[in-house]
C-alpha cells in the first residue's frame, strides 16, 4: 500500500536499528507521547529489538484513557436518563465509568452509536429533529478540527438538536506536567506526529529550551519510530537538545492553518482534568461561550456525583511514566481488558492493554 508499506520495510528498519545499536553507549529513557505510537511499538514487536540501554516510557497520549470518570458518567447519564442519541468513537464505548460503560448503557436500552466522523452525528441530528444528539468529542488536537467542524456545520445548517460533550486534551501541557513531576525521569521525547500535523511545531521550541531536552516529531510506522528514536539518541549521546521533525512527509512546521482556524473558531483553552493524572492548567479545549448552544455541558444540566477512582489502579503513575504497567499488582490479575480497573487497560492504545498483549509472552519477550 503506497506510503505505508514503504514505512514498514524490514531492511530499512534493520539499518536504523543497526545504527541505533552502534551509537548507544549509555542508558537513556525516552517517552513516546502518543498512544498510537505505543500501540505500534508493541504491535510490531519493536521494543525487544531496541538496545537494552534504551527504555521507552509510554506517555499519557491516549485520549480515551485520560477522559475523566465524571465525563463518562455524564455521557452515560445523557444516554440512559435523558434519552439523547449519544454518538462517539468506538474505543470510548468500553471505558468504564463509575457505574458502567457506554456499551453497558447501550445494552440497557440507551441509544449509543459508534461513528467514524462527528459529521455523521450532525446528519443523524438533522434526520431526527425530535431527538437530541450528543457527540462525545474526545481526543487530542488531532480530532479537534473534525469535532469543531461538526459544530460549524450544525450552526450553518440550523441544526439545533446537536451538541458536543467536549473532552479535548492538549499535548504540550501534558509533556510539561510529566517533566515538572519531581520523580520525572524522561530524557527525550517522541512528539506525536499527527498532533503536529494540525498544530505545527512552534509549541515545542519553548519546551526544548526550558527543559533542555531533545524532542523529535515522529510518525507511527516501524520505520518512523525507529528513526525517531535514533534521532533522539543521536542528540542525547552528543549532549545536544533540539526540536527535529522525523515526520516531515506529513508535518509542516506551521501545521494545518485551516484546521487551526476552525478549532479556534469553536474552542477555547481551559483547565482540564486528566484521568489518573489530575488537573493540568490550560491543557484542554472547551466550546467557546458564543457557541454555548452546542455545548452539551451547558445544554443539559446534569449533576453527577464525583466518583472515586478505583484505589488499586495505578493508572496515574503509568500515564506519567513512573511505573510500567506490569509493575502494578493488579496487572493481569484483577485487571485485564475484559474487566479493566482503569482506562489504560481499555483502549488498545492504552499502555496497560498494550502490555497485557505483550508481557504475558514467554519471559524472553518481557521488557
Amino acid at each position, binding site marked *: 500500500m503506497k506510503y505505508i508499506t514503504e514505512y514498514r520495510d*524490514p531492511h530499512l528498519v534493520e539499518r536504523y536499528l543497526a545504527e541505533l545499536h552502534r551509537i548507544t553507549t549509555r542508558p537513556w529513557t525516552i517517552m513516546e507521547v502518543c498512544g498510537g505510537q505505543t500501540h505500534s511499538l508493541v504491535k510490531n514487536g519493536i521494543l525487544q529489538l531496541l538496545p537494552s540501554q534504551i527504555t521507552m516510557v509510554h506517555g499519557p497520549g491516549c485520549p480515551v484513557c485520560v477522559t475523566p470518570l465524571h465525563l463518562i458518567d455524564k455521557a452515560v447519564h445523557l444516554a440512559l436518563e435523558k434519552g439523547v442519541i449519544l454518538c462517539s468513537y468506538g474505543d470510548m464505548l468500553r471505558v468504564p465509568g463509575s457505574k458502567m460503560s457506554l456499551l453497558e448503557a447501550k445494552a440497557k436500552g440507551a441509544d449509543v452509536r459508534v461513528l467514524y466522523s462527528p459529521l455523521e452525528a450532525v446528519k443523524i441530528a438533522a434526520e431526527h429533529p425530535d431527538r437530541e444528539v450528543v457527540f462525545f468529542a474526545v481526543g487530542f488536537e488531532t480530532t479537534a478540527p473534525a469535532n469543531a467542524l461538526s459544530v460549524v456545520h450544525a450552526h450553518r445548517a440550523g441544526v439545533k438538536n446537536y451538541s458536543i460533550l467536549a473532552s479535548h486534551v492538549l499535548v504540550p501541557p501534558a509533556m510539561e506536567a510529566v517533566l515538572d513531576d519531581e520523580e520525572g525521569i524522561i530524557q527525550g521525547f517522541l512528539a506525536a506526529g499527527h498532533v503536529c500535523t494540525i498544530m505545527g511545531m512552534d509549541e515545542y521550541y519553548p519546551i526544548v529550551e526550558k527543559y533542555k531536552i531533545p524532542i523529535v516529531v515522529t510518525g507511527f510506522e*516501524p520505520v518512523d519510530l525507529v528513526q525517531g528514536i535514533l534521532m533522539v539518541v543521536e542528540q542525547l549521546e552528543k549532549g545536544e537538545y533540539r526540536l527535529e521533525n522525523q515526520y516531515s512527509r506529513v508535518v509542516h512546521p506551521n501545521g494545518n492553518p485551516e484546521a487551526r482556524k476552525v478549532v479556534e473558531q469553536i474552542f477555547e483553552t481551559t483547565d482540564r482534568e486528566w484521568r489518573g493524572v489530575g488537573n493540568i492548567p490550560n491543557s484542554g479545549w472547551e466550546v467557546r461561550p458564543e457557541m454555548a448552544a452546542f455545548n452539551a455541558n451547558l445544554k443539559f444540566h446534569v449533576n453527577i456525583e464525583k466518583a472515586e477512582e478505583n484505589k488499586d489502579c495505578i493508572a496515574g503513575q503509568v500515564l506519567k511514566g513512573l511505573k510500567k504497567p506490569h509493575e502494578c499488582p493488579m496487572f493481569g490479575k484483577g485487571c485485564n481488558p475484559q474487566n479493566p480497573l482503569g482506562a489504560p487497560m481499555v483502549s488498545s492504545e492504552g499502555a496497560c492493554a498494550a502490555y497485557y498483549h505483550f508481557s504475558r509472552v514467554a519471559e524472553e519477550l518481557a521488557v
Partner: protein
Amino acid sequence: MSEKINILRASCPMPTLDFDVITLGHGSGGLLMNKLLDSGVFDVLKNDLLDERHDGAIFEMPAGKMAFSTDSYVVSPVFFPGGNIGELAVNGTVNDLAMCGAAAKYLSLGFILEEGLTMQAFWDILISIKHAAEKAGVKIVTGDTKVVERGKGDQIFINTSGIGSVHPRADIAMRRVKPGDKIIVSGNIATHGIAIMSVREGLEFETTIESDTCNLNHTVLALLDEFGEQVHLLRDPTRGGVASVLNEVARDAKLGVEIHQKAIPVIEEVYGACELLGLDPLYVANEGVFLAIVEAAIADDFLKKLKTLEYGEAAAIIGEVVEAHPRQVIMHSHIGGRRVVNMLVGEQLPRIC
C-alpha cells in the same frame, strides 16, 4: 468469483402472492402460510424428502460416522456486497460440517421473519438458498417458518442445521494437533467482515470488496481424499477471525502457535480498509476461508493441491505449532519483532486515532 456472481444474478420470477410484505398471518399456520409455503418455499427448494411435507424428514443412514452441526444467522445488513443471509446460512453450516471432515447431506432450514419484510427480499433470499444448496450438493429436507411482530426481529433470521457423513479417512480432533504441525490458511482473510463493515450504518466508504461466502466442502473433501488422517485439524475462522481460532488451538492443545505476518494473505483493499478503520485483519470475520493444521511432512503437497482447488488459490502456510510458550499465539511481525496475538475481547471496536 464468476460462479458467485451467477448465483446472485440468477433470477426466477417471483410467484404472485396476495401481499407484497410478510404479515403476521404468514406465520399463523393458516391459509396465508400455506400459500407462502406452497408457491414459495416448497416449490423453490423441491426435492424428494421435502416433498413428503412431513413434520420431519425420514431417510436411510449410510454406514460410518456422521457429523451434525447447527448455526443461526443474524447478519445485518441482510443483503451485503457479495451475498445475502440466505447463501450465508447454507454455506455456514455446510462449512461447519466440512470442518468435521464431513460431506453435508441434509439441512434443516428455520426462518424467523419480521413482519414487514418485503416478499421480494424473502424471495431473493430463498432463491440464493436454493442455488447455494445446489452448488454445495446438499438437500434442504425440513424446515420451519415463524413471523414475529415488527420491531421484534431484524427483517430475517435463519437457522440451519446439517447432517453429513464423515470421510472414512478423516480423523480431525484437537488431540491430534502436535508440535511441528504446519498451519495453512485456504485464502485471503478478513474479506467478509470488511465487506459487511463497508455497508454498515455510520460508515460510508466506497469499495468493491465482496464477501467471500462460499461452500468449502468440495475443496475440503478433495483434500481428505488425498491426505486423510494427516490432516489433524480443520477450522473455519468466522466470528473472531483467525486470531480467535489460533488462540483456541493454543489453549485447548496446550501448545504454542507461531505465525508469520508476511505469510498471511490479505487482499490489498481489505488491508487498506483495516488500516483506515483501525481493525486488525486477524480478528475480522471470514466466511469462505478455513485453517488446516497438518502433518509437517505433507504441508507443501497439501498447499500445492489446495492451490489447484476451488477457493484455494490464495492459500498459504502461515505458521506452525510449537512446544514453546504453551497456550500462546505469537506473531513474527513484518519487521522481525514478535508479539502476542490474544483472544478478541468483546467486539472489535474501531480505534479513535
